């Protein structure tokens, strides 16, 4: 169970109190009624399935109830940071590479086998 830092409560709380809410920083067009099919497709349907750093929304649903944003590494499952809704995407330089020679598991290189 992950610990997630709620930027409103300013506390790390167990994952059970939270609910994921999809990609962050996707702005609903203010002129949404007038956008083209292509623009609507990009806004509503198209998402990246990133291996690495993702920016996503979470809600502290069983706590303060606030939606906020998080940067999370999909490989390590680590939350790099969380921040309040409406704040810009933080600039996060890539994590330093491990220098020690280690044995890569099959999953790390090829994904989960059946």
């Amino acid at each position, binding site marked *: *169970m*992950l*610990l997630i830092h709620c930027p409103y409560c300013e506390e790390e709380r167990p994952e059970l109190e939270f*609910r994921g*809410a999809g990609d962050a920083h996707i702005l*609903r067009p203010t002129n*949404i*009624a007038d*956008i083209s*099919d292509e623009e*609507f497709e990009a806004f*509503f349907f198209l998402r990246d399935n990133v291996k690495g750093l993702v920016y996503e*929304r979470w*809600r502290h*649903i069983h706590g303060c*109830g*606030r*939606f906020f944003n998080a940067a999370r590494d999909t490989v*390590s*499952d*680590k939350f790099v940071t969380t921040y309040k*809704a*409406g704040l810009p995407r933080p600039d996060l330089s890539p994590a330093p590479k*491990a220098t*020690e*020679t*280690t*044995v*890569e*598991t*099959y*999953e790390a290189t*090829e994904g989960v*086998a*059946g």
Partner: protein
Amino acid sequence: MSGANRIAGAGRLTPARTARFTFDGKSYEALEGDTVASALLANGVHLVGRSFKYHRPRGILSAGAEEPNALIDVERDAARKQPNVRATVQEVFDGATISSQNRWPSLAFDVGGINNLLSPFFAAGFYYKTFMWPKAAWEKFYEPRIRAAAGLGVAPTQADTDHYTNRFAHCDVLVVGAGVAGLSAALAAAETGARVILCDEQPEVGGALHYDKSVKIDGQDGFAWAQATAARLAAMDNVTVLTRTTAFGYYAQNFVVLAERVTEHLARPDRKLPRERMWQVRAKRVVLATGAIERHMVFANNDRPGVMLASAARTYLNHFGVAVGKKVGVYTANDSAYEAAFDLHRAGVRIAAIVDNRAKPGEGVLAEARSLGIEVLTGHSVIDTKGHRRVNSMTIARNGGGGKRTIAIDALIMSAGWTPSVHLFSQSRGKVAYNAETGQFLPGTYAQDCLSVGACNGTNGLQATVEEALAAGELMARATGSKAGGKVEIRAENAFEWTGGMAGAAEGAGANDNVKAFIDFQNDVCAKDIRLAVREGMHSIEHIKRFTTNGMATDQGKLSNIHGLAIAAETLGRDIPKVGLTTFRAPYTPVTYGTIINHSRGELFDPTRKTPMHAWEEAHGAVFEDVGQWKRAWYYPRAGETMHEAVSRECKTVRDVAGVFDASTLGKIEVVGPDAAEFLNLMYTNAWDTLKPGRCRYGIMLREDGYVYDDGVVGRIAEDRFHVTTTTGGAPRVMNHMEDYLQTEFPHLKVWLTSTTEQWAVIAVQGPKAREIIAPLVEGIDISNEAFPHMSVREGKICGVPTRLFRMSFTGETGFEVNVPADYGQAVWEAIWARAEPMGACAYGTETMHVLRAEKGYIIVGQDTDGTVTPFDAGVGWAVSKKKTDFVGIRGLKRPDLVAEGRKQLVGLKTKDPTVVLEEGAHIVADPNQPIPMKMLGHVTSSYWSSNCGHSIALALVAGGQARMGQTLYVPMPDRTIAVEVTDMVFIDKEGARLNG
């Protein structure tokens, strides 16, 4: 003496304290503290099970959690019966009923053993290859037979009567494993004042000290020191010591889950105690002191009963006082087996020979063996064994040929070296690194705040282990800010440092494909199977694992993984680290379902929500249905009535007289603030700024993609206050949906949302006499049709209680929905009922509610819509504002597919035979005679018998439905085809006269 093989003066159990148990119906005597394995061995029982695939006789291989063979069934009574327990872990208790598994008809004579003779057909990949063709034969022939022949144990047929519990715990330092390393680390951490949890899977702390009698710590016997240290730790306020507790899962951010076996060892446990307790521990730092597991030697017929790990034989002798044989052979590639031989020799057991695969054993152990007069054959291998139910000889040969000789034995102990237990480290997402010098995978890169110490870290030498553990314990504790105490020092010494070890097949395993040299005992995987897998093209260790099933049994390859990997690497001609290690997963050892679900069973599995009127409904004979977590009154049968009769009566009564219905489960959200109307304009397709206070409107909520998400009636209480209702099931997600938009898309709006679902009890009074029923109870509201028309809301009092009274209807009749504070719900209901009943009205349930609304063509979101239905498809397009420039879903509604011709639209259906009631979900076609698969036009979404109409009614989603009015379509069923006519959705009172009465 309990058991002929118990040696007087050996071991730590008390001879006077005996316990009796049965194994396969035969009674045996054990000592308190025995495991089932040690007690069976004391009684000379080596044959305890059959292997999974070949049904080969199997004995006890280990003395610990890694045991692959000796799986037993432990029974207290029919409900408390656990299969697949490792005999090496289960403690004997007086009266225990133990059975062997995977044998038929008996352990000694097993019909499935024929598989052993047929084994050429059971090669690796057998399951994949043999059962590919013909496909039908798999279901009809192979699978039932394999399931009958195989199977690990038998599940109990009765519900478990034990209870289980859960505890959340937080600590500064969690130490996993209470051997020398774990105890030292815990002590160093505890002395700083840090909060420490120390856990160990065994009944007593000590780890390797159970067998290694040569250890002296601070001048004391090692095992005695361990007990004294644990007692000292347990007496400290900041320390929790948990024995019989397995850390089985290591998750993100130092979240480690433990399973504590509380009563598993007790003869007559207090039923108030939980059988097992799950600990969910969040540790600031973790010290892993999980030790190492001895590997077996891989050679022909290395699986006979009586063949076991050297450390296991030493444990049975030094801890349990049991000799595993009278004439014991030793086969090793590692020094540790020598010490087992020395201890057995000193206890009077004859050592037939020490066969060492290496040319150069450690000098110390070699010299000691010579001085004890034990024959040592270096550079030799055991190439075969004999003995059906127990090993009776070993055949040895010089490596490279010659010197072949057969030696009579009654037990064979072996060691191929030690595999560090990096399971939890690996589960923590740490990456292991291969140490070519020792041939061990060791903790490499850490992913979490933990440290490994001792044998699991590849640390050799007792004093080095102690010092590493003390340093790690203190370091981890200091890192959490613990400042007390000074340095802890411990002096430890033992007889010999161990050298050696090998992985993979020893000389005797042979290249011959007929030789059964087992690497995975539980899944019957031999060295030859790994070679075959490589020949068949499996190059990844994960593929080899799945093709051969190596390491996939309940022991998860604790003994076999390294051997399998080494053989694969050799066959592939690659270095071991290039082939890679398979991933370790939780749980480390099997965990019962009871422990994992603990309290979440029965009534506590999921909350049950009851309305304020539930008790009245129960008392009046309601039959309830589950709607999500809610219990809702379904119908109220009178004596002798079937459901159909009750619902027909209720339906007629509501339209002829009136009915009272509990609508409290409706979701309710209070939307308040100066921008409330503007916010609702964005959330619903309708316009809300034009709604006057005191009036209501039916609203449709879409998702951004244009599909119907929820619906409900919204009343405007004041300029800045709306009473929103949602569907029963939709309440939480609608609330979340609104919050999401309010917080993240429209944060400029001054609106506050409050869920009020459980604050209001809702009593619907519907029917021609509805007004007459409530009129004398209502104060301060003119409820005449003129002053209070359909779709109005007023605040006032009923029965002296504040109410929000709605004039609305989900039945098509004159209707009121009385909202009162939940605490008054039942009292107001009873007052209404006291007036309604004498007039001939009825209480009605959800089934009648469904029928009545369907007679009027009112949709239920989630039943008549399925997430791909627009308001226009559902026939409620009138609720979509054409003037608004924005609302959620406005753009989605314009998508090409959503405005295309021929979309499925909701229509009514009448069966040509009025008595036939369609099945909900049934498919609809234009031509029932077309070939299968037929072109489906849609499906039935709602279908009922309507006593008011005198015929069945149905709603259906039909392609281009609104253009098909009057057409005949067909519903093909398995036994017949039903002809239907497409109609509009309103079956009763099309002009709405009853509604406005």
